[in-house]
């Protein structure tokens, strides 16, 4: 929901000089409080604007919270793995993650079975093989037309593309200036579902294309 995340405003005067450090729990708790109400990932910059802190300070706090939730004792040097073993700090049931370019609280994956019982609504059906392959082609070739995806997959992809749209995994991204065909790209929801910050973080395609160097270039030179 576009609404709840503010644009970074440098001259933002939240609380008119309100000093978050003076509140109980300090800036860290204030950051936590904000993280509790966002319903989509928020960037460090947006959070900083809202808290009247520098981006650096917010990033530092985010890193601390992340470690804290994972069971590290903050400021304890080089605590290796969160565990119930030594330092009296077992991981929390939730974690703070930075994906799709923003920060957000998630339930910890260990509890998926339990949590899933409470939030059925958020669960998604699996994608078919056809849908997955189509999604893969779009993710790596975006923006791309259906015709081109079809050519790569060797089958008609119209209905699969429609389903991927409805699932919010892909979206229109204008039309091809030459052919006039609609181009598709993946959404930030796709990034969220993948747990990555940008499509650049997708695994490299090239290791899966053994042997022929220059295929991509040749392909892109527009044979299909």
């Amino acid at each position, binding site marked *: 929901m576009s609404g709840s995340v503010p644009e970074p405003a440098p001259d933002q005067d939240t609380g008119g000089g309100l000093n978050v450090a003076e509140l109980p729990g300090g800036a860290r708790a204030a950051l936590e409080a904000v993280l509790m109400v966002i319903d989509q990932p928020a960037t460090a910059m947006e959070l900083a604007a809202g808290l009247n802190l520098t981006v650096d300070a917010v990033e530092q706090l985010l890193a601390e919270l992340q470690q804290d939730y994972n069971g590290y004792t903050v400021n304890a040097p080089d605590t290796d793995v969160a565990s119930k073993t030594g330092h009296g700090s077992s991981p929390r049931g939730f974690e703070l993650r930075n994906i799709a370019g923003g920060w957000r609280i998630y*339930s*910890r994956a260990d509890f998926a079975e339990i949590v899933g019982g409470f939030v059925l609504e958020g669960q998604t059906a699996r994608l078919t093989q056809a849908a997955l392959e189509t999604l893969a082609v779009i993710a*790596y070739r975006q923006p791309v037309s259906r015709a081109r995806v079809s050519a790569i997959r*060797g089958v008609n992809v119209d209905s699969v593309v429609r389903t991927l749209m409805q699932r919010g995994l892909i979206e229109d991204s204008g039309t091809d200036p030459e052919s006039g065909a609609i181009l598709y790209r993946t959404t930030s929801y796709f990034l969220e579902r993948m747990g990555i910050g940008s499509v650049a973080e997708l695994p490299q395609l090239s290791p899966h294309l053994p042997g022929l160097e220059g295929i991509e270039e040749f392909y892109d030179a527009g044979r299909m």
Partner: protein
Amino acid sequence: MALAGTPLAPALRPAGTAAEPAKKTGFEVRLANFTGPFDLLLGLITKHQLDITEVALATVTDEFIKYIKNLQQLGEEWALDEASEFLVIAATLLDLKAARLLPAGEVEDDEDIALLEARDLLFARLLQYKAFKQVAGLINTTLELEARSFPRQVALEGHFAALLPELVWRHTPEQFAALAESALKPKEAPSNEVGLAHLHGSAVTVKEQAEILGRKLQHGRPMSFRTLIADAESTLVVVVRFLALLEMFRDKAVGFDQLQPLGDLTVRWTAGDDDWSSEHLSEEYEEQH
């Protein structure tokens, strides 16, 4: 260039079984995994344990036709889909062949062809397809893994929601209804936009092209495929003529000679002078179009 590890299970063929039932089993096994013609092509290549460059067109395409027929027996919907996909494969195979058969200069993209042999093109497509298949697997794994953590996305607490600015609302019921009209109007079916003109529009039929080929070959000397398609006005006609030749081959009306893999394909007439007509061509294929 090993294409090992393709996703298709090899045909389950108990030793000593007759070829016919064994093949059926193989196709049924494939059907479960089938996602596209490239998939099938990879499977066929694996099955023949061949390097793609060595695959004789006739063998592979023959298998495709058999495959389509099997599908038709299984259900019409599949068969229709497969039949049109067959054209894609035929075009790909033809790409391979055409680049070899046509002298440089007649090829549209001659620079590219010079840079990259046709077999590399087919390789590229197959490998690309295979790569995307593998990556799709990775994406699936990631999605499933990620689906285990649920984001906190709770409704805004009441006292904050109350702070939201009063909504600006300027729509009359009539304007709102107009909005609903357009939102509810069925979207232009995406398939309309792709257009099937290349399949149906220009009514190029196998039967018709078979007749033309028949006239060219029936009373004359063997001709190369290159010559046979010299007057083809579009790629579609080339593809359909290629398909027609395969059908005619099945009808034992023509024979092929190819001295070496990827070499010139020579077509000769093998039926009698007058006892062949395109009417014989397998009806089931025609019905698809």
